[in-house]
Each structure stands twice: as structure tokens, then as C-alpha cells.
């Protein structure tokens, strides 16, 4: 009967613990925010990726950039650089850096100096200098910078003094500042790198990050959580919450459940919007994001190396149904890869008609009169440009069945999915692109340029020299009309070649408890928790629920 005794004592123990008062738990709760995120980050260095999930978890939390975007107009404003100056020919850009900016102090690194020009030199030389000791650490791929051909653009980065730095460019590039303001162009600590280099632990620079951002990394468990603490000496003033936890929950229902059960304060990409808007204690928020969701083809593999097959696909897919079902009418039908809000949008672009007969004819012309079987890779996670790729894949499966094409739907965990895509294992895929800055080039170059096809961020592997020439030319001029024309030409090539079928431009959604205040999302780039705080109203509400639960004990 020993068991019985221990059972009784266990019950007593639990009862005893339940009697503890809730004050400290509440204050811990009030000082922290839990964010239910949709996936694990790849790395903690945004320079190395283009994945939005990684950017969300790292860039604006851990790091700062030289300059940043602000406001509805998307003006460039100073960040780590107090001010900057561009020469008239556009080939020399000088930044005057901010003083007294401190790096994170963590268990693994204690900085002894403030931010200065060496850190800027280190951060960018790592990308452009192939001989740099850190260039090959973590694989040597810098997809965003390779997309925009950063290393050939920059001739030299010159340190003028500790707080002045000058970029010498080989050609004028009207997107240079815009690119430096993206979430990828973060500043790392040169001193930390030096220490790691000395200890032979170079790879740690991307695993245990040190930056100047409002939060510092405390703990990361793959596939489960990321814990950040606030950076007390942050140059813009310490963040309002002490602890920020990313609860990595890749299942859509899981995130919604946690939100409804108050286990997370903010949830990324919520499903079941009506359910959230019904609840008085939750808010659904959205921003008009610059993005496009598309159905792309691996143009190096049969049968999609055949342009006729790609065109047949475009005729066979009923986009309006996809929009109504997958986006529940909350998105705009995409007529080109550029959203209508972009200034370079070509108003004459037309919607491809849905025409099964035409699709069949094209397919027969291409030599597949009896159809074929293909793989369709659908993203496992919600992204702003596509809230439910699996459902979309099912609909496409049904559409293509009508022209005798059998579709097998394939999906992997998000990071694996991206890796395998980059290796070109797929035939066709559902993906999308969220802009990093407002310039239209950010759609044309990273998605479809030849440079991007070499490094795998252009997963169609489509490479067209005419198209490349046009988009390069568009970067060299500041004349808006001329650029607009060039982009219209580029678009015409895309409409003809169809390496991908643009489907929709959607909003980005987020849901949060009403007690969480502060802006987190912008029209492009990752989210930021710097402004977030919990309003004191929560305590009152929480207290009530606690009292309800323990009514028997706290009889007033």
C-alpha cells in the first residue's frame, strides 16, 4: 500500500501548490509576450537567407541596419547611421555613424567597445570579399546580396574614421540605399567575430548571434521555442517587455488553439478569421503587404521545360476559384508579379482566361495529348501571399485532372521544403514572394533573374538574357517613366514565357489579444516587437479569471 500513500501525498502536494498566490506569475506574464510563430528560423543571421520566417525571428529583433524605412510613405530614415550623403554621380555613398550604440551582452559574449565603422566593414566585407575569413562560414551563400549582385556593385568600402564609412560603387544603382535598408543588411559585431575566430568557433557567429537590436537571444530549441530578453542598453531605449518568446507552432490549428486558449499573445498567420473576429478579447489585424503568390514550374525539367505545357497550365487553372476558396476573397487576383499598388504596375496587363479547350490543344501540341503525372510541391506553412498552399494544391489537382494531368501533392517541413526546392528536386511548386523594400526591382530581380537562378532563390531556374538585360537597365536610371517602360517590357516577356503563374496579392494577417498594444507589422520586411507592450488592463481581466477559478479559496 505504499503506492496509495505516495498517491495521497502527491495529491496533497498539488493541492498545496494550487494554493500559492498568483502574483509573481502574473507579473512574469505581464512582462513577457509569447508569439506563436509558424516555423523555425534557418539561422540567426538574416544575411544568409531570404526566408520570411527567419527574417521575422531575427532581423528586427536582434539587429539594426544603417538606415531604415519609416512611416506610411516608406521614407528612409537614419538608424545606425546618423546621416548619409550620396555624390551626384551616385557612385560614392558616405555614412556618418551613430555613437554610443552598444552590442548585446550575453552568456557567451561581453562587448568591451561600442559600435563603430569596423563593425560595418566586417558585416559587408563578409558578404562581398570572397577571401574574408568569415565569407565561407555557414556555406558562403548570401542569397539576397547575390540576387542584386552586390559584390560586383561595390568596388570598395572605405573606413574614413571610426564613425565615418564610405561605399565606392562601380555603377550608379538607384536601389542601393533601398537595399541597405532591407532586413538583410544587418550589422554584426566585429569584436565578437574576432573572438570567435581566435577560439576556432567561427560558425557560432550565425548560431549565437550578437547584434545591436532591441532583444538578445537567450535560448533556442529547434522546432520548439526561441527565447529573447530585452537589450537594456538599446540605443533607442529599452523595449517595453522583458521577455519575448517565439512559440514555434507550425500547425495552423495549433496556433489558433493556443491563441484561443490564451497560451500565446500574438499569433502569426491565423486561420478561421471569423472565429477570431467573433471573440471580443481578440483582434485580427492586417496590413496591405507587397507580395505575390504564384504557381511556379521547374523550367529545367520535363515536361515544364516546354513553354507550351506551361501555357497550357495557365489556361487550365481557375484563379478566381483559388481566390474565393483559399484567400476567402481577401486578396486581389494577380495579373502580373507586381501588385497594383506598385508604381511600376502596368495597368494594361490582362488576366489570363480560363479555357480548358485551349489548354488541351496546347498540351496536345506539346506532345502530351494524354496528359502526364506531375509532382506539385505545396508549402507546409501559411505565408502572407498564400494562407493555405495545401488547399490550393488540392484545387489545382482537381483543375488539372480535367486535362488528364494527375497531380501528386508533396510537402515537407518548411526549411526542408526550401532546401529541397533550392536544389531543384521539384517539378512544380506553390510559393510566393514578399517584398523587402518598395522598389519594383525587388520583385523582378530576386524572383526571376539569372543570378537568382544560380543561387536557388529563383526556384523556376528560368534564365532569360533579354529579361536580365532589361531589368539591369532599369536599375541604372532614375527616370521613373523610363523604368516603368522597361518593367512593362520585362513583364511582357514573363507573360509569354510563363516560368510561373502569378495567382494573388494578399494582405498579411496577425491576431492578438486585446491587451497587447504596439505595432508589429509593416507592408514589407519582417515583424518587430520593439513597440509591443501588454496593457495593464490584462491584470484586471486575468485576476478575475483567477478568482473565478479559485472561488472556493478566496471568498471575499
Amino acid at each position, binding site marked *: 500500500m505504499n503506492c496509495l500513500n505516495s498517491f495521497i501525498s502527491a495529491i496533497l502536494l*498539488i493541492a498545496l501548490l494550487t494554493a500559492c498566490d498568483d502574483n509573481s*506569475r502574473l507579473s512574469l506574464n505581464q512582462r513577457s509576450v509569447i508569439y506563436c510563430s509558424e516555423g523555425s528560423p534557418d539561422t540567426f543571421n538574416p544575411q544568409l537567407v531570404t526566408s520570411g520566417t527567419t527574417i521575422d525571428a531575427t532581423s528586427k529583433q536582434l539587429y539594426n541596419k544603417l538606415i531604415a524605412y519609416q512611416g506610411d510613405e516608406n521614407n528612409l530614415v537614419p538608424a545606425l547611421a546618423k546621416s548619409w550623403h550620396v555624390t551626384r554621380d551616385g557612385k560614392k555613398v558616405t555614412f556618418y555613424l551613430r555613437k554610443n550604440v552598444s552590442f548585446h551582452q550575453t552568456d557567451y559574449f561581453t562587448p568591451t567597445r561600442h559600435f563603430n565603422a569596423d563593425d560595418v566593414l566586417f558585416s559587408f566585407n563578409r558578404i562581398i570579399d570572397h577571401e574574408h575569413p568569415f565569407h565561407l562560414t555557414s556555406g558562403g551563400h548570401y542569397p539576397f546580396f547575390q540576387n542584386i549582385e552586390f559584390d560586383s556593385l561595390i568596388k570598395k568600402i572605405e573606413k574614413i574614421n571610426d564613425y565615418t564609412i564610405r561605399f565606392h560603387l562601380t555603377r550608379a544603382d538607384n536601389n542601393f540605399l533601398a537595399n541597405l535598408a532591407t532586413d538583410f543588411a544587418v550589422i554584426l559585431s566585429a569584436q565578437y567575430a574576432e573572438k570567435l575566430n581566435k577560439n576556432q568557433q567561427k560558425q557560432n557567429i550565425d548560431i549565437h548571434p550578437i547584434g545591436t537590436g532591441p532583444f538578445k537571444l537567450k535560448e533556442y530549441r529547434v522546432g520548439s521555442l526561441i527565447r529573447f530578453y530585452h537589450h537594456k542598453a538599446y540605443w533607442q531605449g529599452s523595449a517595453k517587455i522583458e521577455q519575448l518568446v517565439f512559440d514555434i507552432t507550425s500547425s495552423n490549428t495549433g496556433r489558433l*488553439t493556443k491563441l484561443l*486558449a490564451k*497560451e500565446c499573445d500574438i499569433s502569426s498567420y491565423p486561420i478561421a478569421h471569423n472565429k477570431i473576429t467573433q471573440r471580443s478579447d481578440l483582434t485580427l489585424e492586417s496590413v496591405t503587404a507587397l507580395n505575390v503568390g504564384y504557381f511556379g514550374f521547374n523550367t529545367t525539367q520535363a515536361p515544364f521545360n516546354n513553354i507550351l505545357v506551361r501555357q497550357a497550365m495557365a489556361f487550365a487553372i481557375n484563379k478566381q476559384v483559388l481566390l474565393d476558396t483559399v484567400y476567402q476573397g481577401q486578396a486581389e487576383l494577380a495579373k502580373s508579379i507586381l501588385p497594383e499598388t506598385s508604381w511600376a504596375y502596368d495597368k494594361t496587363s490582362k488576366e489570363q482566361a480560363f479555357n480548358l479547350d485551349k489548354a488541351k490543344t496546347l498540351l496536345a501540341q506539346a506532345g502530351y495529348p494524354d496528359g502526364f503525372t506531375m509532382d506539385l510541391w505545396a508549402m507546409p506553412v501559411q505565408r502572407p501571399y498564400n494562407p493555405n498552399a495545401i488547399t490550393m494544391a488540392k484545387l489545382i489537382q482537381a483543375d488539372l485532372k480535367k486535362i488528364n494531368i494527375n497531380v501528386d501533392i508533396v510537402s515537407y*517541413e518548411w526549411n526542408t521544403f526550401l532546401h529541397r526546392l533550392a536544389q531543384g528536386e521539384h517539378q512544380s511548386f506553390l510559393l510566393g514572394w514578399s517584398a523587402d523594400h518598395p522598389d519594383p526591382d525587388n520583385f523582378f530581380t530576386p524572383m526571376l533573374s539569372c543570378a537568382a537562378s544560380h543561387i536557388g532563390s529563383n526556384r523556376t531556374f528560368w534564365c532569360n538574357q533579354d529579361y536580365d538585360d532589361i531589368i539591369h537597365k532599369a536599375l541604372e536610371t532614375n527616370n521613373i517613366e523610363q523604368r516603368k517602360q522597361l518593367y512593362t517590357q520585362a513583364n511582357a516577356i514573363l507573360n509569354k514565357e510563363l516560368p510561373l503563374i502569378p495567382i494573388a496579392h494578399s494582405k498579411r494577417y496577425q491576431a492578438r489579444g486585446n491587451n497587447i498594444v504596439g505595432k508589429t507589422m509593416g507592408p514589407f520586411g519582417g515583424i518587430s516587437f520593439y513597440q509591443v507592450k501588454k496593457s495593464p488592463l490584462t491584470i484586471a481581466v486575468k485576476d478575475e479569471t483567477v478568482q473565478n477559478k479559485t472561488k472556493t479559496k478566496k471568498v471575499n
Partner: protein
Amino acid sequence: MLIFTLRRLSLFVFTMLLLTMLSFSLSFLFPGDAVINLSGAINVTPAQLIELKARYHTDSNIIWQYIIYLKHIISGDLGLSMASQSVISHEIMNLLPATIELSLVALFIAMFIGIPLGFIAAIRHNKLSDNIILSVSMIGYSIPVFWLGLLAILIFSINLGWFPSAGQISLLFEIELVTGIQFIDILLSDSPYKWQAFRDATAHIVLPAFVIAIAPTTIFIRLSRTSMIEVLQTSYIRAASAKGLSFKQIIFRHAIRNALIKIIRHVGLQFASLVTIAMVTEVIFSWPGIGRWLIVSIAQRDYTAIQNGLLVLSCFIFVVHILTDFIYAALNPLARDKKYGT
């Protein structure tokens, strides 16, 4: 007892050999290069591949390869996960304790509810309460566990808000992973919120543990009912009642003890099925255990993870099996002499 121990030990070694052999042959059964399946090193350069092949001695004969494989396992080298490229032995060491914790709690719940109910049913054999207990228990083992889990979340987490729906503990509490068993880790930690964390962890384990416990509870009800009915029909019980002992005395002094011993034999077997149910339940309650990890790995065709996850899980189940055998033998001297006592 010595012979019994030796017998068990030889069975243990035999089964371990069988399991590792199975796991080793899996690397050939899975698509792709066996060395890559074993090591999980995808995206290796040709030079690295040659080095890998040398490490696993792929050019020697198959038996030698197997011995090398055993050496790798014994030294704790289970390769890298193909999906995440993390070290599998670390992952398993972090995840397995969580599963053990959950399964043990569920097992105790099942025993503490199932066995008394079964005894009650046996004592009131063929009466109304017996029938009610039996019918409820039949529904209990007919419910698909994943559905039950979802209903439990909907009712107790969302509608009533009594228990949290996911995870081991609220992520606000920073508890360092030491043993992997959350309750022990909390007690070991120096967090200022220790007791709140302990309470929170208790609240988190309630729903998944009860959901897992439902099916084993029904099994324990049936087992204890049958064994109690058997015991009550034995001559020593009749002798006791002839002696004039009250019904209460007979039940508590004699019947329960003898009925319990018979049940203990089945605990090991039940634990195995309980771990399987836990695998499914972990998926629903996002419990960071080995079951969820394994199922995700299967869906992703992460062969290295599948191979080693299965090996560790089946070894674990088998070890539990043998341990309960020992406990049974220690409690019941009769069992030691049996030739085939499984």
C-alpha cells in the same frame, strides 16, 4: 532467481542483437545510399563521402559492417538528422524523457482508476454497476485517441479554460533541460518562479495524460475484474469466509493482494501500447516527445531519424518489459520457475 536472471539477460541480449540487426538492415531497405542513410550526412562533398565510407567500412563484408555499426551505436553516434542536420543522439536524449514522463503519469492514472473500478465490477459481478462499468469501458477503448484529444482540447482548454492545450509548460518559465523530465528539471532549476512553474507543468500534463490513460484504463478494468473474479472463486477465499471473516476483511486482506499480483504481470505489456497511444497524443498536444518527432520524421522521410528513433523506442519498450518481469518475479516466487514466463 539466478537462473531466472540469466534467462532474462540472454533474452535481452538476443533481442538487442535482433533489433540492431533490423535497424542496420533498414539503412539498406530505405531508398538512397546506405552510408548516407546511416550517417544522415546529406549534401556531402565527394571527398567527405569517401571519408564517411571509410568510417563505416563499406568495402568490407556485411558482418564486419554490422559490427562497425554496433560500435557506432555503443559510442552514442546515431548520425545526423537528414531534415535538420542536428545530432540525433542529442535530440533523442532531449525528447525521450518527455515521453517517459507523460507515459508514466498516464500509466499511474490508468492504474489508479482502472484497477479499483475493475475490483468494484468484480465484486458486484453481473449487477447493474458491473454492466455500467463494462459498457463505459467498451466505449473507452473504441474511441479513436486523436479524436478524443481534440474534443478534450475543445472542451477543457477552449470552452472551459481549465487546462492548457499544448506543450509541457508555459514558455514563460525558463527551465533548463537537465534530465528532460520536466518536473525534475523544475525542482533542480534555480528559477524564482519554481513553484508556479511546477503548478503550470502539472496543469499542462493533465489533459494529455488523461487522454492517453483512457484506453489502458479500460484494459486495467477488464484485467482486474477477471483476476478478482478468479480470486474470489478460489478455495482460500471460501475458507476465509468460512472462518467468519467479514466481506470487507476478505477483500482487503486477501483478495486484493492476490488479484494485484496477477495484474502486475500485464503492466509491461500495457506500457508498450500506452507508449504507442502517447505517440499519437503527443502530436495533438504538441508534447515535445519522441513520438511526435518520429511521426514528423516519417512524414519527411528522414531515414536516419526513423531508423534510430525506432531503435531507441523499441529498446526502451523492451527494457520496460523485462523490468516488469523482474518486478513480477520478485513479488511472485511461483513465476521464477516457469519455463516460458513472458
